[in-house]
């Protein structure tokens, strides 16, 4: 296996992009990443794109071909393009496919992109499309919603560990603070714990400010074998681990409702592959689709003891400048959550941080960064570890 580096990155703005279509945003991200890498389209060997539900959101399948076409990679270059789907983990998984393609030697220069255009449909239709990441037959037919599933995780976490609504709110407050310094973030406004607690209750105990928004956005990365990376950039960022794990599709079938075993196992595999421990990681982008998800994630990734995620957050250990900065991009909560793009956007953020280009949200001296991308309520988890040095 060859070492793999990231040589180019690009996010579009995240938000309600009324003037732009799915193909518009994905081309913007893709071309931007290739420009950032100083590469040309002719050099690209393959394209992987994470997209959860083009069929539901923009009534379009065959997303890989569409994107290759509008990126100018089809008509003359005929570059292979593959759409990757694992619900909200589609982006992370597209990156993993791209890494494996380069590492194996099948390809040299590969684009890993992620995109979701969610606002072409109403919020009810969007929620319904998102709910298809759960068990449609045995969760959704009972009236389950995604906030509802995570609310049940939160309820049990509170019952078992004494986690509070205030601690959940602290996750949103911190992520908005980080988003404030991220130019692409959907929400840059500073909020307070009271703002969260006084917002509309969606599914007890989760308020609307405990939930990530519906977002349009695309992100892209350009990958190269490590030995070729310096030809393109002075600041390649190296992939130290790519790991993925599966768990039951339905939340009720988990061994423990408050633990995402897929995260635990993917993290374990990633740490082992990178020969690193949680204390070696300088920053992490976790999948905070809901505030409780960030609490569980930092526990399951080994940054907090089980049950202590809320306390660790309230103690400001996860802020920029804290023991382990979490979601410097603003996370899914403030930066936005265009589902197929999220896993790629997390990698763009970590690369930006490790390059030292994160501006006011920069984590000083960051050497190792991690991304954690989850599909559904935890049926898929993808964990990547990146480093500044090879």
């Amino acid at each position, binding site marked *: 296996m060859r070492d793999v580096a990231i040589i180019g990155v690009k996010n579009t703005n995240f938000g309600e992009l009324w003037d732009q279509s799915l193909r518009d945003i994905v081309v913007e991200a893709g071309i931007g990443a290739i420009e950032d890498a100083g590469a040309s389209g002719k050099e690209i060997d393959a394209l992987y794109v994470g997209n959860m539900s083009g069929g539901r959101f923009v009534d379009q399948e065959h997303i890989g071909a569409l994107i290759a076409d509008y990126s100018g990679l089809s008509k003359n270059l005929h570059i292979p393009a593959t759409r990757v789907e694992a619900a909200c983990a589609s982006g992370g998984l597209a990156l993993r496919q791209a890494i494996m393609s380069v590492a194996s030697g099948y390809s040299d220069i590969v684009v890993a992109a992620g995109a979701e255009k969610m606002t072409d449909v109403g919020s*009810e*239709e969007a*929620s*319904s499309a998102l*709910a298809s990441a759960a*068990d*449609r*037959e*045995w*969760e*959704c*037919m*009972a*009236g*389950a*919603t995604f*906030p*509802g599933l995570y*609310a*049940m*995780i*939160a*309820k*049990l976490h509170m*019952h078992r560990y004494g986690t509070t609504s205030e601690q959940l709110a602290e996750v949103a407050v911190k992520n908005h603070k980080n988003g404030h310094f991220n130019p692409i973030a959907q929400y840059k406004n500073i909020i307070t714990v009271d703002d969260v607690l006084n917002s*509309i*209750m*969606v*599914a*007890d*105990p*989760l308020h609307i400010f405990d939930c990530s928004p519906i977002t349009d956005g695309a992100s892209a990365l350009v990958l190269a074998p490590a030995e070729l990376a310096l030809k393109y950039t002075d600041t390649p960022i190296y992939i130290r681990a790519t790991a993925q794990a599966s768990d039951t599709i*339905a*939340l*009720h*079938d988990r061994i423990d*409702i408050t633990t995402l075993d897929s995260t635990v196992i993917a993290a374990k595999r990633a740490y082992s592959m990178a020969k690193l421990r949680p204390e070696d990681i300088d920053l992490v982008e976790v999948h905070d689709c809901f505030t409780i998800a960030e609490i569980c994630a930092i526990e399951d990734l080994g940054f907090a003891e089980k049950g202590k995620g809320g306390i660790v957050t309230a103690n400001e250990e996860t802020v920029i400048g804290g023991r382990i900065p979490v979601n410097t991009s603003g996370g899914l909560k403030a930066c936005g959550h265009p589902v197929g793009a999220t896993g790629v956007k997390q990698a763009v953020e970590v690369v930006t941080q490790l390059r030292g280009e994160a501006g006011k949200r920069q984590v000083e001296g960051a050497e190792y960064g991690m991304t954690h991308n989850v599909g559904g309520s935890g049926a898929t988890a993808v964990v990547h570890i990146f480093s500044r040095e090879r």
Partner: protein
Amino acid sequence: MSSVPRFWRNLASRYNLEGTHCKECGNYFYPPRNFCVNCRRSGQIEHYKFKGTGEIVTYTIIRTAAEGFERQAPYTLAIIKLDEGSIMTAQIVGDPEKMYIGMRVRSVFRKLGEGGERGMIYYGTKFVPAET
């Protein structure tokens, strides 16, 4: 909410909590599984009708309802551990403010939803507090 054949295929399970049991490992499955997750190919799956009693593992009060469930909001959604050990997701009928983790529940026959005014009506199992 669902397609008619897809719902119909599981009708007996939805109406009567009909699931499965693996004679090899002794595990019960509701929702039904025809392939044992523990024993895989060495499993011996048989039909099993659940008693319909259990307790709340965790729950939430859904205030922003799923599509098709708007009329029922607010409603209690719960993960329920059936006495046979199988765990499922279902609604609990009754005052949402009176629910608690560990509450004993029993199954009832209710409307899960309907495909609008013209569509099929989906019937199935919900739960009520056992003491009522």
